[in-house]
């Protein structure tokens, strides 16, 4: 199993440009998440999904959009990039059953710079 994969690893955007960060998991997890991590700070939840076709906002959703058309993929869209979106972005996935949610597994991250 590859686990959680993210592309690209690095990206530099100009202010106002748009891009999509890709995330895929091959563990058949129903839950998927997007976090951002600023230097020296904790992880902040942007969006999450509990299954295909279902998404919900996290703590810091402004400036981002998501979709989940399949169990495996959960892309994050940045529209009109701003310097405040310079960060490292992590995708994660977990299984959730009747007993509740289980541990999240993280991808390697995408380092994004907006200038």
């Amino acid at each position, binding site marked *: 199993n590859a686990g*959680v994969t993210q592309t690209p690893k690095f990206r530099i955007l100009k202010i106002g440009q748009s891009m999509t960060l890709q995330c895929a998991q091959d563990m058949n997890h129903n*839950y998927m*998440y997007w976090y951002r991590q600023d230097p*020296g*700070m*904790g*992880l902040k*939840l942007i969006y*999450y999904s*509990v299954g295909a076709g279902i998404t*919900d906002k*996290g*703590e810091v959703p402004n400036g981002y959009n998501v979709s989940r058309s399949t169990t495996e993929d959960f892309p994050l869209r940045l529209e009109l990039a701003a310097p405040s979106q310079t960060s490292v972005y*992590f995708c*994660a996935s977990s299984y*959730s059953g009747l007993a*509740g*949610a*289980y*541990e*999240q*597994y*993280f*991808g*390697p*991250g995408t380092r994004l710079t907006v200038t």
Partner: protein
Amino acid sequence: EDQVTQSPEALRLQEGESSSLNCSYTVSGLRGLFWYRQDPGKGPEFLFTLYSAGEEKEKERLKATLTKKESFLHITAPKPEDSATYLCAPYTGRRALTFGSGTRLQVQP
């Protein structure tokens, strides 16, 4: 609103010098707690899940414990390869986790 505080923010140890990291939280309906390790430039790596007060889990030189208000990550005789940031996240049954800001551990040879 859930609050999670990790202390200390940074810790420097000599190789072999044991210590503990703290994760304290104010949440309603605690159902468990996750510990993660994060190396520079990488995603967090899952270490432990603790489900109830009094529970302990061990992995190599790490031992995690849980009370009703806090969790500890004890590091016994650490080695330089234990250097990383350690993150905790209490689980309340809600769909989103709140992560602490982490403790940056540096173990010097």
